[in-house]
């Protein structure tokens, strides 16, 4: 035991030196994710296209480090997350840090990832733009949700009439610009520094080592375990060093999250993405709910239509499996459409949800035609979205299967429309 502790201390002693050599591991050109984490959160640089300089670089690094730390402490609510902060390996490789390029690599669509997502893995990418005047920092964040192995948000039999699938309104969104001060960043940074000791066990008096918190040295952490009393067991990617970190009350109050509501969105998105494959979906839904609701509340009056509609849709999807929350979930799906009525996926989700909650009323004479028309409208707004055409085709099949619902003329009309749909479904599959 003593020798193990000595070995650990020896490793800790060389940590700053090793951190230098870790740089490439958090390099955008060869992105890394924790394959066994259910959700990875990747924080990419906040940049300014017009201005560059050491001052802005320093603030950007400081900001992304604090974002990573804040997200890391989200893990207290979620079972399995990894956080990776990435930077460009050199100034001429800045383009490698574009979210689309990183996403393609970790999904295995293009080569270059040091480690890809697992076959059912998911990630949230967070990045942004930054502009500074004196001690005022203006920033605008963007997020992208990526899932390997399909991105179906909801699937239902629609009362036993087929298979109907829906996706979220968007997998990429922008958040409104915010202003924070350099003083606030310093204040939050010092709170994190006070809690940076990783202990050998869940006791503040147990031996430990300090996590490196230098903005210019990006590292990746995985949360192996978290407990409700504020402790989490973390593992650093390169060295494999691990320890117990205690989230103080100050950190749990999420100061940065209050100033940047998009962190609530990210937190809720982690819960939503874990929910899809969790053994305890109800528990995860309950944990994601406060963050998503807080984000939705903060977005009132701001131009965040797509992000808010997506947050509402995530809530709706997590409510669907709970009979007591299902009608509230459907209401949220309707509210998402009101925010982005031109969005095919928001409309499709609302329609699939409607089938789920009230299929008996829909498969009625005089009702089914209106529903079919709405599905056709959703499909026409979503060029290339084959699954919406599939939903319409399944719906028509369901109408034909219900005895006496469609008279001979209507049945003939439906068969003709299904013929048209078959062509469109084929074309969409190619597209």
């Amino acid at each position: 035991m003593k020798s193990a502790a000595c070995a650990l201390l020896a490793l800790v002693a060389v940590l700053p030196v090793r951190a230098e050599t870790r740089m490439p591991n958090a390099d955008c050109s060869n992105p890394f994710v924790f394959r066994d984490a259910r959700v990875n959160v990747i924080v990419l640089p906040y940049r300014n296209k017009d201005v560059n300089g050491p001052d802005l670089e320093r603030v950007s690094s400081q900001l992304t480090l604090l974002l990573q730390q804040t997200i890391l402490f989200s893990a207290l609510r979620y079972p399995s997350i990894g956080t990776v902060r990435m930077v460009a390996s050199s100034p001429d490789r800045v383009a490698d840090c574009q979210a689309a390029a990183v996403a393609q690599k970790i999904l295995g669509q293009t080569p270059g990832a040091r480690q890809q997502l697992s076959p059912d893995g998911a990630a949230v990418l967070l990045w942004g733009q930054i502009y500074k005047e004196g001690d005022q920092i203006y920033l605008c964040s963007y997020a992208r949700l990526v899932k390997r192995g399909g991105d179906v948000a909801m699937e239902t039999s629609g009362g036993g009439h087929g298979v109907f699938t829906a996706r979220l309104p968007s997998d990429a969104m922008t958040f409104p610009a915010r202003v924070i001060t350099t003083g606030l960043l310093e204040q939050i940074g010092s709170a994190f520094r006070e809690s940076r000791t990783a202990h050998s066990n869940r006791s503040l008096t147990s031996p430990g080592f300090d996590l490196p918190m230098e903005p210019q040295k990006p590292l990746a952490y995985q949360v192996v375990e978290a407990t409700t009393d504020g402790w989490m067991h973390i593992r650093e990617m390169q060295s494999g060093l691990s320890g117990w970190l205690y989230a103080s009350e100050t950190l749990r109050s999420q100061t940065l999250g209050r100033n940047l509501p998009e962190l609530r969105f990210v937190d809720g998105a982690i819960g939503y993405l874990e929910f899809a494959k969790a053994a305890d979906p109800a528990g995860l839904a309950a944990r994601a709910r406060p963050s998503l609701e807080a984000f939705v509340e903060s977005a009132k009056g701001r131009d965040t239509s797509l992000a808010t509609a997506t947050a509402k849709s995530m809530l709706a999807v997590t409510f669907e499996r709970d009979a007591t929350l299902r009608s509230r979930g459907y209401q949220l799906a309707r509210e998402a459409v009101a925010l982005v009525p031109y969005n095919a996926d928001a409309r499709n989700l609302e329609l699939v949800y409607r089938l789920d909650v009230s299929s008996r009323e829909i498969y009625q004479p005089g009702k089914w035609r209106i529903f079919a028309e709405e599905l056709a409208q959703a499909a026409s707004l979503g060029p290339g979205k084959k699954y919406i055409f599939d939903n319409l085709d399944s719906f028509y099949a369901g109408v034909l299967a219900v005895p006496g619902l469609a008279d001979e003329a209507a049945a003939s009309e439906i068969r003709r429309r299904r013929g048209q749909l078959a062509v469109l479904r084929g074309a969409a599959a190619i597209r």
Partner: protein
Amino acid sequence: MFLRRIFFLLTLAAAAAAQMRDCPGISIDGYKVMLDNVSVLGPQTQNANLLLSRLRQKVQFDLAAVQLEVTPQMVLVPCRDRAPQDVTDFNPTIVDSLNGHRVLVEIWGQIEARTGVAVQRAQLNFTLVPVSYYDRQVVPIGGFSAAYQQRLRGSPDELAKLFGEFSDLKIYVSIAAGVKSLKEHDYDQALLCFCRAGWLLERPPAGMEPAVRTSLLKYLERKVGEDFTQAHNDKSVKSGLGLDGSRPACPGEVR
């Protein structure tokens, strides 16, 4: 006197030609948004430069939002050596060339300062290339523009609000992409663009003239009708708009 006037006109013409320099970046494939140089006219005072920096940042925030949230995909082409002076620089030959290169919108702007006087003008201008090419009568006299001289001087919170609010650019890009998609027989894409633009116009940005908004809403209604008609008549294209039972309008609230 006469010779001096000719010399002056020739100088002006040469300057104008330099301002409308070609931008090699537009030769790449795909839909494009061009961002020209946003410059200061007059003395480069500290105040003017600060507003210029803020105006450029506003454009960058808006462009990023458009690129991330708006389909179809488009490429941003920076053209730092190009600086149109006013809407008349976009003569039919230039518009024809831009349209042929699938440029959707060209953004240009100025900060105008005069000695001893605060900034007179801080303006962004938008040339909606397909609209200028196919439906020039829709373009207002003086073109599409947004004035920012007051709002760029606000407090940090007001400035953050300005940076974060949705912009005219999203509307203009959607309209231009819709018109171009319709011309290229991508009827489904066109419908999405027109419907998104129509919804955004329901709550127009602060600086948009009511007459411009009304005119654009009417224009969009007409374009949606054209889109459905052409989709039904064009048997060579597989479009969801051609499905029997579809209604020639943008869907509204959920029933």
